[in-house]
């Protein structure tokens, strides 16, 4: 087992472990904070896969944006004097069975399928290549993504603002 393999195993364990805490913990705050570890773990996985730009984006947007939003959501939807942020659950057993069934079928397909494999080149920085693709082949999705963000902005602001308009 090389150093890389050991590191991968540790990171994978941290990621899956913290994801398990997210879905199993009784406390909402513990869930939110272990989601932080999950996101970081995923970012490190991206680095292992040679996706440096994606890893930076993951940290910036997921940890720096989405997680903060979720924490706001947690905090703003509870009465502050009652910090007993416990959550209840629906039936655990059917959920567990379904999740196990899903995992088994996905794992089976993951390990046995003949995935398309190409010879790998050594990992190189991707930022420039991604930038060129954004302005080249992926220009249309890039523009549509900006419209999507505009719509989300308008929608979220409209739903939450208090003043009523004439």
């Amino acid at each position: 087992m090389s150093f890389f393999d050991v590191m991968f195993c540790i990171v994978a364990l941290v990621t899956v472990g913290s994801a398990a805490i997210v879905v199993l913990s009784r406390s909402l705050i513990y869930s939110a904070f272990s989601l932080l570890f999950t996101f970081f773990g995923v970012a490190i996985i991206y680095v292992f896969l040679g996706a440096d730009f994606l890893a930076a984006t993951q940290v910036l947007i997921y940890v720096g944006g989405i997680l903060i939003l979720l924490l706001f959501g947690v905090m703003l939807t509870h009465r502050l004097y009652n910090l007993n942020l416990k959550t209840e659950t629906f039936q655990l057993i059917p959920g567990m069975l379904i999740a196990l069934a899903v995992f088994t079928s996905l794992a089976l397909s993951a390990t046995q399928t003949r995935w398309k494999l190409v010879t790998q080149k050594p990992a190189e920085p991707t930022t420039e290549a991604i930038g060129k693709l954004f302005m080249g082949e992926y220009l249309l999705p890039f523009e549509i993504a900006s419209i999507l963000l505009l719509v989300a902005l308008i929608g979220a602001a409209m739903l939450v603002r208090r003043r009523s308009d004439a």
Partner: protein
Amino acid sequence: MITLQHYLLLSAALFSLGIFGVLTRKNAVNVLMGIELILNSANINLIAFSRYSSHGLDGQMFAVFVIVVAAAEVAVALAIVLTMYRLLKTVSLDQADTLRR
């Protein structure tokens, strides 16, 4: 030796945990966390395949767009959840069932 299959197993685990979270959690923000796990697992898939299965960066480009969509989705979802809290003073999903008369 870490191969493609290891990454796929990791993402399968995250996906299953996300499905479990979505099915069993009552708090709306908790369900959102489960959805984020699902999206992250798909992203790991895309980037792993981008490295092992194709010469270009298509998978990584797709993953960037998924991150963008996830951010927008969380923003809108939280706006809806906050509105719900304002109206009902709770975000528990079993309180949100008046439509099913």
